């Protein structure tokens, strides 16, 4: 169980370009942090660094458990969800096949997957191929795995962007439930999150 996520003095670099330096953030159970900042400031890179895909140039990203720091690999593999622009859904397979695989891979059950698809209004879409879904339906399918497989930390990269207003409200409720269960949310957003969230600005150093 992740009690808190600590980002201390973080600097990220992509190639020769330093995106930002000295980023501090702390996220505890039941809290949401909204990452704001201009396009290209490094919000997505920050999320990918927390997920372990990008190695920090300086500083550290620490996952704290109840008894001190958790091994980062275990925390990522057992307690992190990431939803970004690319959802890993294979276009030629049915929504049901893809959802079932993703949920079970991430440690959820098929019943939970069906329940999540019911909540997100996907039940009637499950037998369609993923390529036939609209952008919003596809995003809901990606979010269904987050809802169905219980993991503590949600890393969300503009999760609301393709959703309509009704589903934005619905996902807001789901996020509030997750926070209420002691979950953590770190989301890169341009619009305010529909739950109470602290804002952390990712101030890009800009292009040299």
């Amino acid at each position, binding site marked *: 169980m992740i009690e808190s996520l600590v980002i201390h003095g973080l600097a990220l670099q992509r190639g020769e370009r330093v995106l930002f330096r000295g980023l501090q953030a702390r996220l505890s159970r039941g809290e949401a942090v909204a990452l704001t900042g201009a396009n290209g400031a490094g919000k997505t890179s920050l999320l*990918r660094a927390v*997920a*372990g*895909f*990008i*190695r920090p140039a300086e500083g550290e990203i620490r996952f704290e458990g109840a008894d001190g720091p958790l091994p980062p*690999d275990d925390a*990522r*593999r*057992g307690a*992190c*969800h*990431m939803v*970004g*622009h*690319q*959802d*890993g*859904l*294979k*276009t*030629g*397979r049915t929504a049901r*096949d893809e959802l079932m*695989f*993703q949920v*079970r*891979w*991430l*440690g959820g059950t098929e019943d939970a997957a069906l329940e999540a698809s019911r909540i997100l209004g996907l039940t009637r879409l499950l037998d369609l191929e993923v390529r036939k879904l609209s952008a919003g339906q596809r995003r809901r399918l990606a979010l269904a795995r987050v809802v169905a497989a219980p993991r503590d930390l949600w890393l969300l990269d503009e999760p609301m962007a393709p959703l309509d207003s009704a589903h934005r409200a619905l996902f807001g409720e789901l996020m509030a439930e997750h926070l209420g269960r002691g979950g953590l949310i770190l989301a890169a957003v341009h619009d305010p999150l529909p739950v109470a969230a602290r804002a952390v600005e990712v101030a890009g150093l800009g292009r040299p």
Partner: protein
Amino acid sequence: MSAFLILFRRELALAWGRGGGPLLAVGFYAGAVTLLPLSANIDPAHLAAVSVGLSWVCLALASLLSLERLFERDFEDGGLDLLSLGPLPLEVTCLAKVLAQWLTAGAPLAVAAPLAAIALGAPAAVAPLLFAAAALGGLAFSCLGGTGAALALASRRGGLLIAVIVLPLLVPPVIFGGAAVDAFAAGLPWAPGFAFLAAYAAGAVALAPFAMAGACRNALS
């Protein structure tokens, strides 16, 4: 069901879904072994002499065919992110992908190899050994090809890179396997060549997952 099996079954389903799974590799193989003798215009006695070597080399090339896309699609559509956040270390995940690839392309090719050799004039007695060598060799080919495919991620013209990286690594198993089966057909001791092939395959299975996982991490970062 364990995470390994969940992933393995998914990879099998994906391999069947894209381009008919084994059919592409086996079709290419059948085409290569039938066209080569037609183009060379050699008499049956000579053809029989090279039948084992011919079937073996075509096998190595055919098994590379489906490997190029092993990681590419997952890399492009974000699937590799999802796989990295799953319960298994990335090394084990890569191994599952390669084994599934071997089962869909390598195993059917191992069945096709003795048939092709016999059709070209090899004695029927070589079939069991050729099957075993093709199955083992196919495992080595899959691991090596998977390593090349992972290294080629995030670079343009990955297919060319795979060929350049992987073809030299294919030379030892091609020599060991071909020599073992040829020696058997000639009534000579064949076990040493086969043992070398098995050792090479074992080494590839043991080392390739680390190389693949490292290359995938590098591509993701």
